[in-house]
């Protein structure tokens, strides 16, 4: 184990490639990232105003990862992640109002107010959860891949055609469950990609203090015989292009893969984290690598996005989140009967045909 307390990642402000995805697509991604950012800013406010309880972890700084990864997927590819899950749910297509209502503990929430910030679920958008226990989602990810392959091959008599993304934090590298999941994925040839959102820290523990070979975590995946990639996660185009290659290969070969996604969380681990374990200088350095600014600059400098257009987009996003927050606030708290519903399936009632529970009228 090395003893450096600095994360083993360095910001790269390499300019974005001019080629690649279309301008319209890039604008969409910019909007998606802005939406997540604004959602998280409002989340933090709401938490401070005590409208949100429990543990709450925001995704600010890591937006390019969820957006770029999702862009590399087909709409029906399953996704599963840990507790820092708002960005993945939104990137996957969940309406922010359901997320906000979830955190407000309202019946309109994506889990009827029963899951909270750490446990966002959205079946309609193939989002198999936020999971609160570090590492717990990684065997589930293997299981989702097992099921898509089983369904495609055994039930439908075709070829395996879906890819599962199983996100994890760098802290989860050290959980036994993750290693068992990798081994199973290898042994059973599962089409799952473990995307490690390597933001350099698990709570206050720098990666070099928590994991052996923290400077080169793909070496662990090599031990399982996986293909792996190191991707610059502060740049949505690099995330997309890097992931597209990994996803396409996984879909084709039905072999697991591992991605060391270099990123940074701009805020504390949770709402109560004074961040004494890292320096202001380091934070400032990464702030200059903001994935949203980076894409906005690219669009403005090389793709003809005007300042006005950008402002309109940012305004729209703000409005959307404001309305989502209003909607969430108007959603009622769950009836007490809800406490006893969903414990067993027979109490669940007929499946409504959408992932989302009975909602208020729009």
């Amino acid at each position, binding site marked *: 184990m090395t003893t450096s307390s600095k994360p083993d990642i360095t910001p790269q402000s390499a300019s974005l490639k001019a080629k690649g995805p279309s301008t319209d697509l890039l604008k969409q991604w910019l909007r998606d990232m802005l939406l997540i950012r604004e959602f998280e800013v409002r989340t933090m406010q709401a938490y401070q105003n005590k409208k949100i*309880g*429990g*543990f709450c972890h925001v995704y600010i700084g890591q937006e390019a990862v969820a957006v770029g990864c999702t862009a590399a997927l087909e709409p029906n590819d399953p996704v599963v992640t840990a507790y820092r899950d708002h960005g993945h749910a939104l990137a996957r297509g969940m309406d922010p109002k359901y997320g906000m209502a*979830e955190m407000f*503990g*309202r019946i309109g929430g994506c*889990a009827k*107010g*029963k*899951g*909270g910030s*750490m*446990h966002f679920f959205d079946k309609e958008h193939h989002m198999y959860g936020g*999971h*609160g*226990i*570090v*590492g*717990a989602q990684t065997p589930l990810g293997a299981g989702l891949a097992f099921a898509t392959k089983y369904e495609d091959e055994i039930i439908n008599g075709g070829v395996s055609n879906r890819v599962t993304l199983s996100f994890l934090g760098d*802290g*989860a*590298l*050290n*959980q*036994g*469950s993750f290693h068992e999941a990798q081994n199973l994925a290898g042994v059973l040839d599962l089409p799952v990609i473990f995307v490690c959102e390597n933001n350099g820290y*698990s*709570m*206050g*523990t720098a990666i070099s*203090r*928590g*994991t052996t070979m923290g400077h080169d975590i793909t070496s662990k995946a090599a031990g399982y015989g996986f293909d792996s990639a190191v991707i610059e996660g502060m740049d949505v185009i690099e995330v997309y292009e890097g992931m597209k290659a990994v996803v396409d290969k996984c879909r084709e070969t039905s072999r697991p893969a591992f991605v060391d996604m270099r990123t940074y969380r701009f805020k504390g681990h949770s709402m109560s984290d004074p961040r*004494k*374990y890292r320096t202001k200088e380091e934070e400032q350095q990464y702030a200059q690598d903001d994935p949203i600014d980076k894409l906005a600059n690219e669009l403005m400098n090389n793709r003809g996005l005007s300042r006005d257009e950008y402002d309109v987009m940012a305004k729209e996003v703000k409005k959307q989140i404001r309305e989502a927050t209003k909607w969430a606030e108007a959603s009622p*708290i*769950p009836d*007490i009967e*809800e*406490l*006893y519903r969903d*414990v067993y399936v027979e109490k669940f009632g007929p499946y409504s045909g959408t992932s989302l529970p009975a909602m208020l009228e729009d």
Partner: protein
Amino acid sequence: MTTRTIEFREALREAMSEEMREDLRVFLIGEEVAQYNGAYKVSRGMLDEFGPKRVIDTPISESGFAGMSIGAAMMGLRPIVEFMSWSFSLVAADPILNNAPKMLYMSGGQFGCPIVFRGNDGAGGQLGSTHSWCVESMFANVPGLKMAIPFTPYDAKGLLKTAIRDDDPVFFLESERLLSIEGEVPEESYTVPFGQALIRRPGTDCTIVSFGRPLYFCLEAAKTLAQEGIECEVIDGRTIKPLDIDTIVASVRKTNYCVVVDQSWSFASVGSEIASQVHQHCFDDLDNHVMRVHNDDVPAPYAYNLEQEMLPNARKICEAVRAVTYNA
């Protein structure tokens, strides 16, 4: 003894620090216990005093560091293993349930396991079902372990010192909701023995038995009930294993009624065990069957109103006491 008012978390820290000063075999290990000063600041300053070889930060590898510490205990060291939350101990279920409590027996008495596992237990406030485990009933089912649940800062220090000195594995269940409460704690070294319940409020009409945080709800309920003319005797069991059934029985013989309040689920629980033992010992003294108040039999919900309803709150305790004493 010189006492002063300190927080629950400081009392825990004092217990650990005093024992570590006394006994070099004692060390503290867990996630964020050293450089971060503890996720809940229980171990604040301990790294500075004892250094990184005795206050040890671990990766998020509960199964690994729990198992490793059990190995160290087999060699005679006396680890204090902090789980940030007992909810996370579930990924270490095999070492803490299959190794620690059975080691002495399985080795025919050769290898003991003097280890303390400690951390937050129970609902922390809207943490959702994965983070709100009350492990007492589930784990108390296992022979070979001891289990303590402190309610006051005084007991936090005294019981933890007893736990660290104990030659058997001790599961020490704290509550995040209690860590900031203050109480009088002697500066000097003292211990609180295991297996000695304490009457927190004397009364003549109904015995209420509980452990840890729910005792607050019990005392709140007892106040309300006193205004209705029902004087409850509230007993703090302090340790679940060993269980001081004698104190409970003596009280029930006096009051003839008993309500057990247990924050874990009702099925096969600490509450059902105590009820069963009270029925056995007090069959002729009871004027009604023992009533139990538990967490509702559902996973912990996130929504505030649902969580409040799920917990064994004062309202439910009052209802149980009124129901059980209706024929008084």
